[in-house]
């Protein structure tokens, strides 16, 4: 059974090929602890990160920059998780509070690890699921660590740079 799961050729009609999502919010911050600022567009630089963001490789001003990670150039978060937090835990969490860069709707982030997809003009490769941290509870003052386990977003590497705007499509690589 597990052997079958690990063999991509054995999968039938991967669900991940059937979606198209949209960019709802874009956020960056230049340094650890500072509030995320909403942006109408972001400039993604191949192999580096987001212009002006704390985790841009070479800038190293993020809370976790002392733990370098080449696959953490841009991070995504599901708008659906914000809805679920309100519905299931009565927690109001805004798109500026989860501290990922891109809030998307209609994109099954947990299915994308190891896959490539288009975010506006940029081509990304999903490297791993994001992990919640207590740091975000310190910043927001909200008990969101536990509710965010397994739905804390997606870390990605930028394979091809470009501009991403609010409203852009998020598409799988066909």
């Amino acid at each position, binding site marked *: 059974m597990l052997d079958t799961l690990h063999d991509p050729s054995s999968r039938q009609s991967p669900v991940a090929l059937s979606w198209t999502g949209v960019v709802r919010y874009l956020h960056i*911050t*230049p*340094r*650890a*602890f*500072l*509030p995320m600022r909403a942006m109408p567009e972001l400039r993604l630089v191949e192999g580096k990160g987001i212009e002006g963001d704390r985790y841009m490789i070479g800038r190293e001003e*993020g809370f976790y920059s*002392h733990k370098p990670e080449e696959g953490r150039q841009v991070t995504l978060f599901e708008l659906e998780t914000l809805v679920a937090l309100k519905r299931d835990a009565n927690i109001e969490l805004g798109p500026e509070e989860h501290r990922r860069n891109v809030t998307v709707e209609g994109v099954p982030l947990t299915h994308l690890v190891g896959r490539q997809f288009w975010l506006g003009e940029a081509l990304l490769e999903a490297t791993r699921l994001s992990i919640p941290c207590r740091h975000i509870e310190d910043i927001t003052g909200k008990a969101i660590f536990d509710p965010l386990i397994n739905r804390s977003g997606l870390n990605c590497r930028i394979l091809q740079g470009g501009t991403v705007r609010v409203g852009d499509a998020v598409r799988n690589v066909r």
Partner: protein
Amino acid sequence: MKVTPITTIKTIVDTVEHAGAGVKLFSLVDPDRWELPPFRPCAHIDLHLPDGLVRTYSLCNDPADNNRYLIAVKREPAGRGGSARLHDHVKAGDRIGVSLPRGGLMLDADVSRFVFVAGGIGVTPFLSAASWLKRTGGADFTLHLVARGAPPLSRLLAPLQRSGHLVLHDTSTAARPEIAALIGRPSRKTAIACCGPASMIDDFEQASRDWPEACVHIERFVPPVLPADPDARPYTLALSRSNLETRVDPGQTMLAALLGLGIDIPASCCGGICGACKVDWLEGRPVHRDRVLSPAERARSLMVCVAGSDGDRLVLDL
């Protein structure tokens, strides 16, 4: 590139202003003028100064003014060195690491009136609250400031004087007012708060003993002296994630034991009032001696600077 962990908010000193006898007003901003983390009225921050000095100061500006942290520092020649360092060595353009803002008033929608009682430089936390209340118009308030002679921070107080919110009590020309007379009778629709020297805090605690606990807020300059516990016993402190153990002797703090293990714990007041050294606990029976955690928070966390153990073993989530 070797990068060290970032543990403080990077700020630069934008302006330094004389604000009365022995008082300076420091405005701290982000190097790129980015917004700073938000704070509640009456909140405070730690300043991380050279030589390991960490000092806590109240924020004086309106919480809506999120591009700076404004702190007022009175030079205390007989203090622990933080105010002298700031007065004598810190200038515009210097960098200072600060903590996330902590504490402040929990604003209850049912409260329609605030009474603030301040002694001297103890007026600082209420300046942010006063600005906030004036701007939002949600509740009436009176700020009683007890000072000998001219009060500090006259520029910041002037708008409150003009609007009739400030009542000055000059003890050089009149007797010190009775705290009970200032705060009035207990009411669930009134919140009262005090910041000042220890004697004023003691009087305020006495005068407010019949008030609902949720309506009383106290800001302290100096941590209260904890009485020695004659029944204190040694206990084992275990760190679950680090897989370390140490013995905490009677009279020794949990914080000292952790620092002895090489665990880097941010701490500031070391008296259980500032909230900097909060740690989650997992097993055992902690003895909470802080003045900052709510009962609900104590079910999960403790302040290592003052907490103890009622059992032989206490396990922390470190």
